[in-house]
Structures are given as structure tokens and as C-alpha cells.
């Protein structure tokens, strides 16, 4: 135990002395949450809209007022002819153009039918889709209000409820993703690099001729990063609850326990990498390309897994972050209990034992 404490102390000396690395380790989650929270949002807010309204009657005015009132749109300019449409989209500022016909209200009153054209900049298809459906919804809403006065033979009213995330906030999606990314980065990359560094420096050899057992060396290496990760878990959760207003709907204990499990999986992966490579560069490269990339791409955080081709869906099952991401979303956002995530938990635990076993086996072979 004395050996172990001496080793952990030394490891903390390394971490605290290297201010830059420490800043990255503890600052990264904060920066990522802030970047994802405020800059890189895929929510559509205050999109600039151009309007062509030749009729200028009570109906169009009231509709435009509602569009202006919504937080998704900001009426940027009025245009006066269809010729201008092309030009304003070319400039790139305008995302949506709403074209009313002349005599909108008369059409509506006399023929019971009027048309509105929505033209969206589909160079970003997701935004275009979102904007047209928001605009349609506002128009539908208006229609419902005016038809209330009259009796229509049949009406089907759709009523939508967005469960778990009524305001459709992006943060609900990326907070679990950032957690997976940060924990993986800190644990896997840093553990792999520090162990490989000892190999490069020749200090690992000294450790191996010492009476300290190899398993103890490895565990002592992992402990400081486990502690650092706990700090990161805490800071991410605090930021998301108090700054981004993402609630923790499920049990905090369960969430933290699952996060620690994922941290252990990441540490085991780091150890495994460190037994396989001999230079810090290789360790860094494998951690980034071999782990970070699949985590971002295949965990479901950026791209929905259901939409991927089958081979990629199969591959995604081997990415630990996918399971963790699913767990965090269930527990944190949906507020489910352990019975909803026991399968994912079991898979993560299995991965932990698999990676750890492989790492220890490799470590021993190196000694023979």
C-alpha cells in the first residue's frame, strides 16, 4: 500500500506540474460544453426571412406578425418582385422567403382557398426542412383560428407533444455526447500516453526491476485519471444543469455510477493501447483516430445510428461510447431507472473485463 501511495503521489506531481496539460484536462469539458451549448447549435433560431407581400391586407399582415413573433424567424426585408428572390438568396443571409400572392385575403374569402409559397435555402437541407415545417405550422395555426368561426364538414387536428425535450433543445442531445467524448479522451488518451512515456524514458524498466508488482504499477497509473474524470463528470453535470438548463430527470447516483463504469472502460482501453505501442506519438494517434473518431461518428451523438448502412450499424456496437451515450440519454433525459439500461450496462461491464483482461495479459507477456 505504501508503494501504491508513493506511486499515485508521483503521478499527481506529474499532472500538477504540467500546467498546460492540466488546464486542457480540466478546461476541455468546460470549453466543449460552452462551444456546443452556445456556438455549435443545430437548433434553428432567428433565421432571416424575406417576404414578398403584394396584397398587404389584414390576413397577410396578421400572418407576418405571427412569423415575426416566433423565435425561429426574424423578418429581415420585404421584397417587391419575384425577380429579387434569386438575388437575396445568393447573398446568403436569407434562409427562407415567404411569397404571398396578390389578393390573398380575397382568395381566402371568396374561393376558400389561398396559396403561400415557401422558398428555402436548401444548401443546408436540415435547416431548410426545419424552417419550412416551422413556417407551415404557423400558417396552419392561423388557418385553424380563422376556420373556427365556420363549420367545416371534417377536420382532423394533429396535436404534437415532444416528450422529454418539449423545447427541442440541442443540449439534451449533446450533453451525453460531450460526456462520452471527454471521459474517453481524458482516460484513454492520457493513460496510454503516460504509460508509454515511462517506456520511452526507460523508467518503466526501473519499475519492473523494483519489487512493485506490474498490476500495481498499472492500477497506480489509472487512479489519478479516475479522480480527474470524476471532477470532469461533476463539472459537466453542473454546467449542463445550471448553465444549459438540461435537467437530470433520473437518479443522480445511477448516472454517476454509469459514468464511472464508462471511465473504467476507457482506462482499460488506454492500458491496452499502452501495452501495444512503444511511442507517445503512436499512442496519441491510436487514441484520436481509433477512438475519438468512432466515438463522434458512431455513438449516435452526431448521426443517428438507425440511418446508417447495416455494416456501420454492426460496427457501432463495438464502440463503448454508443452504449454509454444511450445510458446517459435514458437516465438523464428520460429519467428511466436501472431496469431500462441494464442491458447496456452489462455490455459495458463485459467490455471492461475484456479490455482489462487483454491489457493485463499483454503486460505479463512483455515481462517474460
Amino acid at each position, binding site marked *: 500500500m505504501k508503494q501504491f501511495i508513493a506511486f499515485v503521489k508521483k503521478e499527481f506531481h506529474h499532472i500538477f506540474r*504540467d500546467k498546460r496539460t492540466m488546464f486542457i484536462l480540466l478546461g476541455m469539458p468546460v470549453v466543449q460544453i460552452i462551444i456546443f451549448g452556445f456556438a455549435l447549435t443545430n437548433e434553428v433560431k432567428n433565421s432571416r426571412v424575406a417576404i414578398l407581400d403584394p396584397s398587404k391586407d389584414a390576413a397577410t399582415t396578421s400572418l407576418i406578425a405571427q412569423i415575426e413573433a416566433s423565435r425561429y424567424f426574424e423578418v429581415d426585408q420585404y421584397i417587391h418582385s419575384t425577380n429579387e428572390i434569386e438575388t437575396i438568396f445568393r447573398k446568403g443571409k436569407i434562409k427562407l422567403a415567404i411569397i404571398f400572392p396578390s389578393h390573398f385575403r380575397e382568395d381566402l374569402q371568396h374561393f376558400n382557398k389561398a396559396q403561400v409559397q415557401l422558398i428555402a435555402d436548401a444548401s443546408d437541407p436540415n435547416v431548410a426542412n426545419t424552417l419550412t415545417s416551422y413556417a407551415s405550422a404557423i400558417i396552419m395555426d392561423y388557418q385553424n383560428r380563422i376556420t373556427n368561426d365556420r363549420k367545416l364538414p371534417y377536420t382532423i387536428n394533429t396535436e404534437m407533444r415532444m416528450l422529454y425535450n418539449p423545447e427541442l433543445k440541442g443540449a439534451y442531445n449533446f450533453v451525453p455526447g460531450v460526456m462520452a467524448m471527454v471521459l474517453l479522451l481524458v482516460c484513454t488518451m492520457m493513460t496510454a500516453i503516460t504509460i508509454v512515456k515511462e517506456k520511452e524514458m526507460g523508467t518503466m524498466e526501473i519499475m519492473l526491476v523494483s519489487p512493485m508488482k506490474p498490476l500495481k504499477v498499472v492500477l497506480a497509473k489509472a487512479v489519478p485519471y479516475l479522480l480527474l474524470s470524476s471532477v470532469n463528470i461533476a463539472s459537466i453535470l453542473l454546467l449542463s444543469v445550471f448553465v444549459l438548463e438540461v435537467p437530470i430527470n433520473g437518479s443522480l447516483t445511477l448516472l454517476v455510477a454509469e459514468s464511472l463504469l464508462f471511465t473504467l472502460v476507457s482506462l482499460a482501453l488506454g492500458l491496452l493501447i499502452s501495452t501495444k505501442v512503444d511511442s507517445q506519438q503512436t499512442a496519441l494517434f491510436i487514441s484520436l483516430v481509433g477512438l475519438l473518431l468512432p466515438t463522434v461518428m458512431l455513438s449516435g451523438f452526431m448521426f443517428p445510428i438507425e440511418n446508417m448502412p447495416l455494416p456501420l450499424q454492426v460496427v457501432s456496437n463495438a464502440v463503448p461510447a454508443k452504449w454509454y451515450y444511450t445510458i446517459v440519454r435514458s437516465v438523464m433525459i428520460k429519467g428511466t431507472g436501472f431496469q431500462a439500461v441494464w442491458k447496456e450496462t452489462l455490455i459495458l461491464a463485459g467490455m471492461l473485463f475484456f479490455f482489462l483482461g487483454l491489457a493485463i495479459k499483454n503486460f505479463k507477456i512483455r515481462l517474460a
Partner: protein
Amino acid sequence: MNEKVIIVENLTKKFGDFTAVDHISFDVHKGEIFGFLGANGAGKTTAMRMLSGLSLPTSGHARVAGFDVYKENEKIKQNIGYMSQKFSLYEDLTVKENIRFYAGIYGMSNRFIREKTAMVLEKLHLAAEGDKLVKSLPLGWKQKLAFSVAIFHEPQIVFLDEPTGGVDPVTRREFWQMIYEAAESGITVFVTTHYMDEAEYCNRVSIMVDGRIDAMDTPQLLIETYDAISMDEVFLKLARKATRAAD
């Protein structure tokens, strides 16, 4: 000087078809400075790794500090010190932190560490530098500090793998002064080196060629036997016979 602390009989290590160490036998006595010479690739490092418990022999027997290399390598580890050719202190830790760490992994008590640290720093004239980072020290001092750390836990034997690589001649002399002092206090010194003048400082030397020990005696007797004027010449005469390429 009669107590044998290293006993090696027909020690062999094979990697597949390649015999890195080929039936070597020798004894080292307590307090002796034993030079272990050989060209690169002759099998020195492999032999040393087997004796220090890092690698298991393929066949043969060896006892180090009274313990069997096959069954008791954990006990061997407790009783030996090791300093490798790679510089083995942590540059981003202070002098004291390095000492505390290495003493810690050998399970020394805090009191022992505190008292001995003061003694060692005093001896190295580093008392004022105790809280400085190791990277700020000149190479010679680092090397001497590394040696002091390797024998800090008062092992029976210390293995030095080319300890003076890249060090200036003055520091090398001082370094050897420390080796003599350690030997006088009863620590057996097992040292590999490339510098033949250093070989002459040893009580006895062995010269490995192609995995075998071709010659072993005191430096004076070796020089006489091979009709040479220095160890350098003895070494060249023997090493020239090597058929194995250096690695």
C-alpha cells in the same frame, strides 16, 4: 570477499532459434566490482535482464543474492538496485520527489527516507538543490543522483547498464569514486560498459562474444594472457572473433 552473491551455471536464453546467451557460468563475490563487457549484440543486456528478474532463462541455473531466478524473482527484486543506460529519473519531479518515489516503491519507511535523503544530498553537494526540478541539473549530477537512487534502499547488488554513457571524463571519475565507495560498504557492483579504461577499474571482468563468455579474470591478468598493453587491445582481439552482427 568469499561470499558468493551471484552464482551462474550454464545460463542460457533462446529466442526461437536464436541463442542470445549461450551456457554462461560465473560467480560474483560480495563487495566485488564485476565488469561485464561485450560488443553490442553479444548478449550482455539479455544476461543482465535474466539476473535482475526481468526475463526468465531458457535453461541453466542462477542464484542472485541467495535467491533462485526462476522461483524467487520477487525476492531478488527487493535485494537489487538497477540503473539503466537510459537516464532513469523523472525530469519533471524535484530531486527530493524522485528520491521519495523510488524509495517509496521499495517500501522504505518515511523516517528512513527522510534521514537518508538528507545524507545523500549532503554527500552529492546537492543539499541546496533538493527542491529543484531534476531537468535543471547538469547531466553529470543527474547521473550521480541516479546512482544514489539505485542504491538508496541498500541493496546487496546493484546492476549498472552502461551508466556513464555520454558523461564527461571528470564526472566519470567521480562516478567511479562513488562505485568504489558503494563496493567498500559491501554492495556488489555488476557493471556493463563500453569504456575500456573503466574496465580497468573493475576487480574482475568478463568479456562476452556471441553469447558466450570468452574470457574472465582480473584486468591485469587478462592483459598478460592476451599479451596486450591495455584492456582495449584485449577487447579488440576477442571481439574480432565475433560472427554475430551487432544489433
